[in-house]
């Protein structure tokens, strides 16, 4: 090791650790859902959002890869297939940084309950499946606030893949992981790619304190469970309408 110059290799490794509400420097809270495509996470987050919206809570919903800022670059890169694992990852990180700095952080500071459909763990699982170093990815996203709850929706690979393939006439190039050169068959490539991502997610359950959700359960039962966990783990009073004036 002595022969390897280390002027740029950093020794510090960020590790996501849940920060208790009393130690956070913002009054808001962050709830995220993660899981592979077809795991049911978006449906469940939508239902959670509806429940809170109807109740009049101060919430904001945010999605992965939604900012107009990098849209043209992402489109250009995807259409012409110019993206490497590294530039794919950095472009999504830039997009996330924009959302983080201009939406998520100000809203958390302004006392909102922020709901995120996919978060940094999507990048950890997906970009590592493409070959990026997990250590590099952890550092890249170390500016992101750590969620109060990370729901991980887990469905068996076959269930999830069938949900996606059945509903979509054609899988997109990067979506199917075709850039990895695993298989020339898109459906096959997609399956293997999703399997790698699933394995990467599974490895984060312990280290990143995921709340494991069974994606094969009936939608309404799963939602009931999700609402219960949110109520237990996040103090919803500060986000509630009117009576929110009482301070902790």
């Amino acid at each position, binding site marked *: *090791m002595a*022969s*390897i*110059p*280390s*002027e*740029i*290799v*950093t*020794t*510090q*490794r*960020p*590790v*996501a*650790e849940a*920060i208790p509400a009393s130690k*956070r*420097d*913002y009054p808001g809270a962050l709830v995220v859902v993660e899981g592979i495509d077809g795991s049911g996470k978006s449906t469940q987050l939508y239902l959670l959002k509806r429940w809170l919206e109807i109740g009049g809570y101060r919430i904001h919903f945010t999605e992965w890869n939604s900012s107009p*800022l*990098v849209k*043209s*670059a992402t489109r*250009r*890169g995807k259409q012409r297939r*110019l*993206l*490497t*694992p*590294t*530039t794919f990852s*950095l*472009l999504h*990180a*830039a*997009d996330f*940084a*924009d959302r*983080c*700095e*201009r939406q998520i*952080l100000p809203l958390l500071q302004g006392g909102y309950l922020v709901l995120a459909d996919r978060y940094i763990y999507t990048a950890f699982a997906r970009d590592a499946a*493409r*070959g*990026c*170093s997990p*250590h*590099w990815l952890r*550092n*890249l*996203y*170390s*500016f*992101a*606030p*750590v969620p109060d709850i990370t729901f991980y929706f887990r469905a068996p690979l076959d269930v999830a893949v069938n949900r996606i393939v059945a509903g979509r006439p054609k899988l997109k190039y990067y979506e199917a992981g075709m850039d990895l050169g695993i298989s020339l068959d898109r459906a096959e490539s997609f399956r293997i790619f999703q399997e790698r991502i699933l394995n990467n997610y599974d490895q984060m359950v312990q280290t990143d304190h995921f709340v494991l959700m069974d994606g094969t359960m009936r939608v309404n039962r799963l939602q009931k469970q999700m609402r219960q966990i949110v109520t237990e783990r996040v103090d919803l009073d500060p986000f509630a309408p009117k009576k929110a004036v009482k301070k902790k």
Partner: protein
Amino acid sequence: MKRAKKVTELMASSNGGPEKRAKNGASAKNVSRKKNGANGNGRAESFPRFYGTPLPGVKPEELSGSLIVVEGTDGSGRSTQISLLTEWLESEGFAVETMGLRRSFLVGEDIDALLAENSVTRMTLALMYGTDFFDQLERRILPALRSGLIVLADRYIFTLIARAAVRGIGRDYLHGIYEIALRPELTFWLNVRPEVAFDREFKKSQTISYWESGRDMSLSNDLFQSFIRYQSMIKREFEYLSKRHGFIELDGEGSVSEVNRELRQRIASHLGIRRTQYKPSHALAHLWR
């Protein structure tokens, strides 16, 4: 800005260390064979191509070309020197490829658009520059180096690190992003005082740009003061980076021909070029002063 809690672990290079060392050893052999006369900086013997884990899918031993970086603030004369060096190397029979900031096909124009708007935040901008850098590196520079070309970089990761660091982004964070980057064989720093840089930049465009004067940082409403303070901060970052990365510091306030002679001597000894005499062609004569 909230940072995830950091813990110290073993260094990444200790995992898979032996493999990396073997690879680097192999590449070092190629380098020293190719450049027999190389004794310029004494690094050619055991020169790892990457700072840490190489970019995904890259084999360091395949890279036979040389990466040479010229760094310096706005108005330090970098671009002039790169033009002259390109011509000199080509006249010596070396094929040259260049890189710089915002020149990637992927996001170069997007960054221009972001800069024009002045509403982009620091982290997003830093990561867009990172994307721009790696797009050039992976799709243009690595292929050039595999083909044995000399790559002259008009700025490199150091400017990107310095600019982001003065805006409060952690140095460790920034070094972490660029630890997968290719390490230059030579890095020159054309050092000029901010006042001199101001004169040169003003002469060039009759005005001072928003970003060159760091106006996004609210340093001063006085444009001159803002420019000087911003460039002084950048310069301090470079002083730190120079120690950490072993820059070859040159006095950028010397005449173009003086600075050029210095650069040619260093590069010639590194590449094993014996003759270092050079007079710019007609096309570049206007740069020679």
